[in-house]
């Protein structure tokens, strides 16, 4: 039964229909077959009884006449009835008289039945009848009839019933299929929807209605129920969500409070009403140098020692004060916390009672913080502020709209406006005429994070005076790194600018005067040249005519007159030498028109010595000339150079005969020439002066123009060289010089020339 209950409705319907209709049909069939069997039996009994009586009646004569053949013929007529198995006629004594057997010529007659009548056996029917003649029994007829006909009928009816059953089953199947559509499908949809709802909790699902029958009503009711559930569910959800949110909020608030307390930057200690520590956060433990397990339960006084920074006096624990006064206590400044290990930490602290609304305090909470960094920052900031205050530069802060936020005394002094006047005013208050658009441009660049350095411009003071300033403008950032303003440092460079202008002017003046000087120098040289040239003319006249005078009037002049004329001639001679040297000197300053030639210095020396022949002979000078190189220069320059140096060596001799050496050492541009003597030498203080034109160390006792060494220096410098003197006063001098501009690489290996007075005399 359980299996049936669990079957799907469709199958249940099929089964119910099938069983009901099958049973009805089967019972009807059985009844019909049973009834027919009974009726047929009765009919058969009557039919056979009739047949037996007829046959028995018809056999009376045969038996009476003892004619078995006639009897057999009568019996043979039974052949028409196919179901008759056999028929036998017995005599009264029971012996077979005649017989018939279906399909057989010789019938085997069974012994006759004991009593007349019809008897049914399982397979056949046996009918016995007494053959009576005139009231007397003459024999017995026994007939056996098979029941095959009955079986045939039964089979016929059974088959009929079966066919009806099969047809009914088919009809039931189709009918139940239709029923499935109208009953099972809506039901299974309902079931599916219900299952889906319970699984997915989607109360939005609705079932489609197929018909307005009870199932339709059921679907409506189901859908209605779902709607109800859905709205209930929504409400529930809302309620649940809000409750969850509330719960979460409460949880996170508690978490955050706990986290806040633990991780807050300030030190937090809470105590119970007796001042025993119930909680200390990490910062507090760190500052106090205590560990969590050690500190819990201790009295605050044991771990929290504070003194006044200046007086070093113990400061009352805030807890005691809080408990006494029942109010929030802010601590005095300049409090020093002395930690467990003796470290002193400047702190700010405050205490507060812990209590619920309207209840007495349950304890205290103490909050304090290490202000070392802030102290340092304060100091730094004070220091920076004092720098800003004392700076001679104007230091100005402004916001991005150009509104001035700070204005230091440097700015006050520089621009003439006080801080009170300027703070809150726009920076363009100090813009100079024509520079108004400069500040917005600077601010635009500042907004972009750019820094403006050493921007030279002008600004207007309160008194209207325009000053030159060098600006450095930098962006000011807030804590988030956003540009919020600009710091501007202005330096008054009016003096510098003026100084620079003065300098430029001075430079220009200098250049001008340098040019003037150069020009006047050139003029002077030209003048010296022309003068020395032209002065020679009248001098020549004086000389020649003086001589002419002496020659013509030699006899008429007295001795004094001759001395006078001699002095005139001597004077003109000296003047002529002077003019000649001056001319030579000025000519050295002029540009040479001809290119320098390759000159063998040995040849130059020979010419010089030839020129000095008389002086050499007079002084008995011994002159040795070393190996001298060839140079790229003008002979007209080299001759006076060597001639003056050797001439001087002869002229400024000591008591001994002069010994003079001319030599060259080194190579290339470094080649150094030397003219050394054993003369009177030169005191150190004069060693530079002697090269200045007209500077002479000696009076008229040693004749000279004072230009010789100046000419030498000019020649040497013309070839990029240097000339100097080394001397042992009283004993010797060596004039040294270089001629880098004249040195040519050509090798020169001319042998030295040695000239002796004796040779000259020969």
């Amino acid at each position, binding site marked *: 039964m359980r299996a049936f209950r669990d079957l799907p409705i469709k199958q249940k319907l099929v089964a119910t229909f099938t069983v009901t209709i099958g049973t009805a049909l089967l019972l009807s069939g059985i009844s019909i077959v049973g009834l027919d069997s009974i009726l047929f039996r009765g009919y058969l009994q009557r039919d056979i009884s009739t047949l037996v009586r007829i046959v028995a009646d018809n056999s009376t004569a045969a038996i009476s006449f003892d004619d078995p053949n006639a009897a057999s013929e009568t019996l043979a007529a039974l052949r028409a009835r196919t179901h008759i198995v056999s028929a036998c006629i017995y005599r009264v004594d029971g012996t077979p008289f005649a017989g018939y057997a279906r399909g057989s010529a010789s019938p085997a007659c069974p012994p006759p039945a004991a009593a007349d009548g019809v008897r049914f056996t399982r397979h056949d029917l046996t009918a016995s009848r007494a053959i009576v003649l005139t009231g007397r029994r003459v024999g017995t007829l026994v007939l056996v009839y098979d029941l095959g006909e009955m079986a045939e009928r039964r089979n016929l009816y059974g088959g009929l019933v079966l066919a009806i059953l099969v047809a009914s089953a088919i009809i039931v199947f189709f009918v139940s299929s239709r029923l499935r559509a109208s009953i099972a499908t809506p039901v299974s949809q309902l079931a599916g929807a219900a299952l889906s709802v319970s699984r997915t909790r989607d109360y939005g699902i609705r079932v489609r209605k197929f018909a307005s029958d009870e199932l339709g009503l059921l679907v409506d009711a189901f859908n209605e129920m779902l709607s109800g559930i859905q709205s209930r569910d929504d409400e529930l959800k809302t309620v649940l969500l809000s409750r969850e949110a509330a719960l979460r909020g409460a949880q996170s608030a508690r978490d955050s409070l706990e986290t806040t307390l633990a991780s807050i930057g300030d030190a937090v200690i809470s105590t119970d009403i007796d001042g025993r520590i119930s909680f200390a956060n990490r910062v507090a433990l760190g500052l106090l140098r205590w560990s969590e397990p050690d500190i819990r339960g201790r009295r605050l006084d044991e771990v929290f020692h504070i003194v006044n920074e200046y007086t070093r006096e113990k400061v009352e624990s805030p807890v005691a004060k809080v408990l006494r006064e029942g109010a929030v206590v802010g601590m005095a400044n300049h409090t020093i916390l002395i930690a467990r290990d003796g470290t002193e930490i400047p702190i700010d602290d405050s205490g507060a009672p812990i209590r619920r609304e309207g209840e007495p305090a349950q304890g205290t909470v103490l909050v304090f913080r290490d202000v070392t960094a802030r102290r340092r920052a304060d100091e730094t900031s004070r220091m920076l502020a004092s720098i800003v205050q004392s700076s001679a530069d104007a230091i100005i802060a402004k916001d991005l709209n150009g509104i001035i936020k700070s204005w230091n005394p440097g700015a006050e002094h520089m621009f003439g406006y006080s801080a009170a006047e300027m703070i809150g005013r726009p920076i363009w208050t100090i813009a100079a005429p024509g520079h108004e658009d400069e500040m917005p441009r600077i601010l635009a660049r500042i907004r972009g994070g750019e820094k403006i350095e050493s921007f030279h411009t002008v600004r207007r003071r309160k008194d209207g005076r325009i000053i030159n300033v060098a600006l450095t403008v930098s962006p000011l950032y807030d804590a988030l790194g956003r540009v919020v303003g600009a710091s501007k440092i202005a330096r008054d460079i009016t003096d510098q600018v003026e100084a620079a202008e003065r300098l430029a002017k001075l430079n220009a003046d200098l250049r001008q005067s340098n040019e003037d000087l150069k020009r006047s120098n050139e003029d002077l040289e030209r003048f010296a040249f022309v003068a020395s040239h032209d002065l*020679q003319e009248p*001098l020549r*006249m004086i*000389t*020649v005519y003086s*001589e*002419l005078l002496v*020659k013509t009037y030699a006899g008429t002049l007295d001795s004094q007159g001759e001395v006078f004329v001699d002095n005139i001639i001597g004077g003109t001679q000296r003047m002529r030498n002077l003019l000649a040297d001056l001319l030579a000197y000025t000519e050295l300053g002029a540009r040479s028109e001809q290119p320098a030639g390759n000159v063998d210095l040995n040849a130059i020396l020979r010419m010089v010595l030839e020129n000095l022949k008389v002086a050499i002979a007079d002084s008995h000078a011994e002159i040795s000339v070393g190996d001298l190189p060839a140079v790229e220069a003008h002979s007209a320059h080299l001759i006076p150079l060597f001639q003056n140096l050797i001439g001087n060596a002869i002229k400024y001799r000591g008591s001994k005969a002069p010994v003079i050496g001319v030599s060259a050492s080194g190579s290339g541009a470094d080649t150094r020439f030397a003219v050394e003597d054993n003369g009177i030498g030169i005191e150190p203080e004069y060693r530079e002066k002697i090269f200045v034109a007209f500077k002479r160390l000696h009076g008229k006792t040693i004749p000279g123009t004072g230009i010789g060494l100046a000419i030498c220096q000019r020649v040497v410098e013309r070839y990029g060289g240097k000339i100097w003197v080394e001397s042992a006063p009283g004993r010797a001098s060596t004039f040294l010089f270089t001629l880098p501009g004249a040195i040519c690489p050509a090798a020169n290996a001319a042998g030295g020339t040695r000239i002796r007075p004796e040779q000259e005399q020969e």
Partner: protein
Amino acid sequence: MTAANGKAHVLVVEDNPADVELLRYALGGAGVDCELTVIDNGGDALAFFEQRGVYANSTPPDLAILDLNLPRYDGIEILEAMRASRKFADVAVAVLSSSSSPRERARIEAFHIARYITKPPNLDEYMRIGFVVKEMLGEKLAS
């Protein structure tokens, strides 16, 4: 050309009378007997060689002694005018100059100067100029 009196004709262009005097003295000292025409400025010298004004009938001298440093016109211009004229182109010239600079010598090289004499700084040398002139005039003096 020899002067009408048969003496050699020497033209002296010199602005300094003292030099002219010394020249005369030197010529005398050397025994040079000649006709001396003295012109003391460049303008007249140009007029002489271009035969203008009072010098319209000037004739070529046997020797021209020329100071290059003259007022108004300098020696170069005079030499140019002289060499440009057909009549005076071949006149022998001795330049008498106070300058002995090679530069000045180079400037007048093109004018076929016979002698270049630096004005001497003493009497002895001055006297030698007389003999130089004597030598230059040569056979013109003998005639």
